[in-house]
C-alpha cells in the first residue's frame, strides 16, 4: 500500500513537471488529467462525474473539493488554496450548503429548487445526531446523493428517483450492523415492498404513490410521532383523515399512545384495505379491541352489514345489466347511472373512518337507491328481451304461414298455366 502511494506521488510530481513545461495547457482540468491516468479507484470519480448534474451545469472538481485545477500536480491540492479533499461528516453540510443554501446563487441554475435543505437537515434526527452528538455514522447529503453521481429526482437512474428511494434508505436502514447501535428494525424495505403503495409505484408506475420520504420527510427526516403519522396519511387520504379526526378513536388512540392510521393499517406494510378488515370476524381489525357485546363491536357489525348490503345490491344490478348488455340490449345509460352506487360504496367505505353508523348509513342509503333503480332497469331490459324473442317467434310463425299460403298459390297458378298450355 505504502509503495503504491509513493508511486502515485511520483506520478503526480512528474505530471506537475510536464504541466509546468507546457504552459499552453495550464487552463485544462488537471484533476481530470491526473485522476484519469491513475486508473482504478482514483479514476472512478472522473468517469462517474461526467453524468453528474453538477458537471452538466458546468461545475468542476474544485467546486466541492477546493484547490486549483489549473495547477498541475500536487500543487493544485494545497490546503492554502482551499483544498478540502474528501469532505466528511459536518464538512459535507458546509460544502453542499455553500451553494445550495445560497438563494442568489441557486437562482442562476435552478430557480425552483429549495435552499433550506441544510436548515431542514439540522432539524432531522440525522442532523441532530451529527451536529449535537457528533455521530458521523448518520446519513448526510452524500448518503442519499452519492458523490460524483448526483442526478435530479426525475432521472430514473437517480438514487432519489421515487422508485429508487426505498433502496437508497435501505442502504443504511436495511443494514443490521449499521442499525445495531440505534436499536432500529431493518425490515422496513421488505415490508414496504409488500405494500399497496410499492405496488402502485413499481407496478402501475404511479410516481405519486408514497415512498419513504413522503411519510418521513427527506431532508428533515424524523421518526414518526403518534399524531404526526395521522397527518401524513391524511395528506393523500384526506377524506378518511377528516372522518377520523372527528371520531372517538382519534381521542382514544391519542390517549392510549398508539398511532391513528397505522394501528389498523400498519405502517410500512400497508396492504390493500378490504371489507374483511371491518367487523368482528377473523382477520377484522376491529376485533382486536372490540367484542360482540360492546358498543364498538355492535357499531363495527352494523357498518359491515351496511357495506355488504350495498356491495351485494351493486353487484346484483351490475351482473343483471351485464347479462342484458351481453344479449345486445342497450343499457349503457343504466350502467353509467349504476356508477353512482359504486361511488357511494367508495364514499361509505371512507365514512367507516368516522366509526359512526349513521354517517355510513346515509352514504349506503343513497347508494342502495341508485343500485335498486339500476336493477329495475336491468329487469326491464331482460323483460324486453323476452318480449323480443316472443315477438320474433310470433312473427316467424306468421311469415311461415304466409310462405305456406304463397307456395299453395304458386302450385295453383303453375297448374293453371299447365292446363292453359295443354
Amino acid at each position, binding site marked *: 500500500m505504502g509503495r503504491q502511494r509513493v508511486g502515485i506521488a511520483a506520478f503526480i510530481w512528474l505530471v506537475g513537471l510536464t504541466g509546468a513545461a507546457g504552459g499552453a495547457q495550464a487552463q485544462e482540468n488537471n484533476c481530470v488529467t491526473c485522476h484519469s491516468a491513475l486508473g482504478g479507484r482514483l479514476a472512478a470519480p472522473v468517469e462517474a462525474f461526467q453524468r453528474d448534474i453538477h458537471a452538466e451545469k458546468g461545475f468542476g472538481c474544485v467546486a466541492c473539493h477546493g484547490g486549483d485545477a489549473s495547477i498541475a500536480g500536487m500543487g493544485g491540492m494545497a490546503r492554502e488554496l482551499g483544498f478540502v479533499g474528501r469532505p466528511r461528516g459536518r464538512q459535507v453540510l458546509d460544502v453542499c450548503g455553500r451553494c445550495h443554501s445560497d438563494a442568489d446563487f441557486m437562482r442562476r441554475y435552478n430557480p425552483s429548487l429549495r435552499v433550506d435543505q441544510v436548515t431542514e437537515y439540522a432539524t432531522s434526527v440525522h442532523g441532530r445526531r451529527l451536529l449535537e452528538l457528533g455521530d458521523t455514522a448518520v446519513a448526510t447529503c452524500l448518503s442519499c446523493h452519492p458523490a460524483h453521481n448526483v442526478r435530479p429526482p426525475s432521472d430514473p437512474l437517480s438514487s432519489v428517483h421515487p422508485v429508487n428511494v426505498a433502496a437508497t434508505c435501505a442502504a443504511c436502514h436495511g443494514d443490521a450492523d449499521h442499525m445495531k447501535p440505534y436499536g432500529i428494525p431493518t425490515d422496513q424495505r421488505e415490508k414496504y415492498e409488500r405494500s399497496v403503495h410499492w405496488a402502485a409505484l413499481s407496478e402501475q408506475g404511479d410516481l405519486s404513490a408514497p415512498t419513504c420520504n413522503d411519510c418521513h420527510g427527506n431532508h428533515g427526516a424524523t421518526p414518526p410521532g403518534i399524531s404526526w403519522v395521522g397527518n401524513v396519511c391524511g395528506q393523500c387520504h384526506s377524506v378518511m383523515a377528516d372522518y377520523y379526526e372527528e371520531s372517538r378513536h382519534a381521542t382514544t388512540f391519542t390517549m392510549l399512545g398508539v398511532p391513528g392510521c397505522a394501528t389498523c393499517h400498519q405502517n410500512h406494510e400497508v396492504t390493500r384495505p378490504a371489507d374483511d378488515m371491518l367487523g368482528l370476524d377473523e382477520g377484522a381489525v376491529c376485533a382486536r379491541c372490540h367484542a360482540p357485546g360492546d358498543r364498538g363491536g355492535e357499531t363495527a357489525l352494523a357498518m359491515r352489514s351496511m357495506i355488504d348490503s350495498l356491495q351485494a345490491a351493486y353487484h346484483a344490478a351490475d351482473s343483471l345489466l351485464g347479462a342484458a348488455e351481453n344479449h345486445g340490449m342497450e343499457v349503457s345509460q343504466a350502467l353509467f347511472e349504476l356508477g353512482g352506487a359504486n361511488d357511494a360504496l367508495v364514499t361509505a367505505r371512507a365514512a367507516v373512518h368516522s366509526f359512526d353508523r349513521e354517517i355510513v348509513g346515509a352514504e349506503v342509503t343513497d347508494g342502495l337507491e341508485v343500485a335498486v333503480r339500476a336493477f329495475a332497469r336491468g329487469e326491464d331490459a331482460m323483460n324486453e328481451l323476452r318480449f323480443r324473442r316472443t315477438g320474433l317467434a310470433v312473427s316467424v310463425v306468421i*311469415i311461415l304461414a304466409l310462405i305456406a299460403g304463397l307456395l299453395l298459390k304458386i302450385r295453383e297458378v303453375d297448374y293453371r298455366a299447365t292446363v292453359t298450355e295443354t
Partner: protein
Amino acid sequence: MTRVRAWWHRSWRWLDDRIGFDAFTAVAKKKDVPVHRHTLWYYLGGMTLFLFVVQVTTGILLLFYYRPTAEQAYESVQFLMAEVEFGWLVRSIHSWSANLMIFALFIHMFSVLLLKAYRPPRELTWYTGVGLLGLAVTFGFTGYLLPWNELAYFATRVGTEIMGAVPLVGDFMLRLLRGGDDVTGATLTRFYAIHVAVLPLCAVFFLGLHLFLVQKQGMSVPLDVQQGGGSRGRMPFFPNFLLRDLVGWLVALAVLAALAAFFPAHLGEEADPFAPAPAGIKPEWYFMFMFQTLKYLPAHILGIEGEIVGILGFGLAGVFLLLIPVLDRRSARGERSPLFTWIGLVMILYVLLLTYLGYTADPAI
C-alpha cells in the same frame, strides 16, 4: 257486400280512365322469365331490390330521431335504442339489411358475370349494376360513421386515410370527405348529407335505369342454355315469378327479424377523438379483402409506395370490372368465353380468401 264490390269497380274504373292501367297490365302479362337450370340466379336482383326497399323504409324511420352532430349523434342513437318503442328493431334491421343487401348484390353481380349476362345488348344494365354496387358500398361507408361511436370513428379515420393515399387527388379527396384535416363533426355532417340525400338521389337514377333496362330487354338466357338446349320454356312474370320472389322476400324478412332479435346492432362507446385507437380496428366485411391486401403489400414496389400501388391496383380492377362487356369480345359474338369465366372465379376466390384472412390472420402482420 255487393254494394262494396260495386263501389270498388266504380273507383277502379274512375282511376283507370285517368291513369290507364291497361298499359301496365299489358306489360305485366307480356313479361315472362326463361326457365332453365340457372333460373335461381334471377331471384337475386329482386332480393337486392327488396332489401333496398327495407333500407329506405327503416332509414326514413331512423331520420325521425337521429341528430347529425358530433355532440348529439351518439346520444340520439342511444335514445333510439333504449327508449323509443321498437327503435332497436328499426336500427337493427337497417344495419342487418344493409349487410344482407350488399351480400345479395355481390352474389347477383358474380352470377351475372359468370353467366355472361352482360352480353349485348345488356352492357348498360351491367354498367348501371356496377354503379349500384359502388353506391351500395358508399352507403355502407358513410352510414357506418353516423352513430359516432369509437369503432366507427377510427374505422372512418383509417378509411379516409387510405383514400388520402390516392395519387394526385388523394389529399383533395381526403379534405373533401373529412371537411378538414381530421375526422370531426364536419365529417359527420358531410357523411350524413351524402348518406341521406346525395346517394339516394344517385341510387334512384341508377336503379330506375337498371330496372327499366331489365324490363325492356328481359332476362338474359345463358349462352350454354341458348346454344346447348336445356330451356324449359318461359314462366309468366306475373304472378308466377313474382309469387316466388315474394317467398324469398318473406324468408329474408324472417332472417332479418331473427338477426335483429338475437344480434341487435351494437352501439359501443361514444367516439373520443383524443382517445387512442382501439386495437384491431377492422373495416366492414365488404372492404376487408382490400384492407387485407394493403396490409400484405411491401412498403415499396418498384420505388412506389406499396399502399399507392394497392389503391391504384384496386382502381384498375374496378375499371376492368366495369369494362368487361367491352373486353369480352367472344361473349359479345355469342361464343364461349372461358377466360372471363376464370377471371370471375379468380375474383371470387380472391375476395373470399382475403376476407377470410382478414378475420383470422394475426393482426400484427
